[in-house]
């Protein structure tokens, strides 16, 4: 349906092919979250890898920071319609975590869990092979609490709610189990290029 009188503001030509449908470019870094920003104490911070209820490995803050890190440059896309280009993150890849735990990815799906009780589901194949990291810095600085610090999952090729803030565990699951927003009407996979915003998209 053509909207009478609407011309629109096209994204700048140099961003051609980088802004998914329905998204608009922002240079800010908007914050979206379901509740208050948790303040996570580094002294008690921990990160756990598990399969179902069973713990595979866990790390405290110092141990986690001692793992080899990688830098990721990526465009990010939020389901609330903004996209941000050329963001730079640093953290520990999921491949590295599996290797440090001495295991291969045990199942095809996982749930990321967070300090505020949030969770989100991602297929395993979308975070291995260099596609996902646990990010510890953004733009060269420690990750700010409102952006998910101390650590967040980063899976930039999916809508950004999949990149869980304040992450404290990855739990491998046998089936694709819905997380927080996925139980509240949002898409199970969330590919911005296919505009998979909501259930049924």
């Amino acid at each position, binding site marked *: *349906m*053509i*909207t*009478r*009188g*609407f*011309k*629109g*503001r*096209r994204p700048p030509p140099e961003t051609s092919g980088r802004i998914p*449908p*329905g998204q*608009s470019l*922002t240079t*800010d*870094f*908007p*914050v*979206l*979250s*379901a*509740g*208050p*920003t*948790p303040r996570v104490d580094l002294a008690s911070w921990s990160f756990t890898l598990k399969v179902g209820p069973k713990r595979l490995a866990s790390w405290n803050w110092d141990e986690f920071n001692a793992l080899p890190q990688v830098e990721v440059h990526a465009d990010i896309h939020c389901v*609330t*319609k*903004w996209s941000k280009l050329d963001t730079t993150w640093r953290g520990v890849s999921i491949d590295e975590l599996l290797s440090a735990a001495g295991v291969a990815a045990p199942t095809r799906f996982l749930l990321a869990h967070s300090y*505020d*009780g949030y969770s989100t589901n991602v297929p395993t194949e979308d975070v291995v092979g260099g596609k996902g990291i646990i990010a510890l810095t953004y733009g060269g600085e420690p990750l700010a609490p*409102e952006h998910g610090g101390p650590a967040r999952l980063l899976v930039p090729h999916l809508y950004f709610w999949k990149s869980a803030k304040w992450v404290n565990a990855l739990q491998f699951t046998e089936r694709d189990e819905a997380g*927080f*927003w996925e*139980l*509240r*009407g949002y898409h199970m996979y969330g590919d911005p290029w296919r505009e998979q*915003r*909501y259930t049924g998209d």
Partner: protein
Amino acid sequence: MAIEPRTVRVKSYFVEPTQPFSFRAGQHVDVRLTAPDGYQAERSYSIASAPEAGGPLELVIEVLDDGEVSPYFHETAEAGDEIEIRGPIGGHFVWSVGDGGPLLLVGGGSGIVPLMSMLRHRAARAAESRALLLVAARSADQVIFREELLALEQAPNGPIVVLALSRDRADRAGDYARRVDREMMTELLERLGEPPRYVFVCGSNPFVETATQGLTDAGVAASVVRTERYGG
């Protein structure tokens, strides 16, 4: 679609869905505008009307200086236009009378909009549990729905309504002539008188951060606080 000005920068757009549309207070819709060449822009707007109101949905749109969709609505859209909407969307920032109270609502600027749907719903269903709304704006004339809010406050079991005006006098007892801060959150909890069962905070990110940190510092459990942040 019908249009009604609310403040100098805010208008209400009354959209009549073409199909049956049921929603919960606090939900939003996605609006999609399509240019003749197929280019599309999408934005989310909260619903201000009550779920039981029937008739058109009230969407409230503030014009943003560097915006794309909001200037279209303010400068180009006319009564009678057809607009493509999708929804309702959102299953977290929602409240129904059956969820119970007390209810603490904190809105900054156009963050009042989903809270207005909750208050209208509450009034329509004659809810008796306590409710308090704090709404922040630069000045009294920029408080969206100000007259309706003050009328709601006077109704039986009406919510306590508190204005926080950053660049205006506080004419009513209990209002504030400053931005939201921690101390204000502590005082709101005292005025509500009972621990809130649900807290909804909506506004810009700095507004939501200040309000929610103030509330959790004052002892409100993070698990009862739901937020919606806009802008960036």
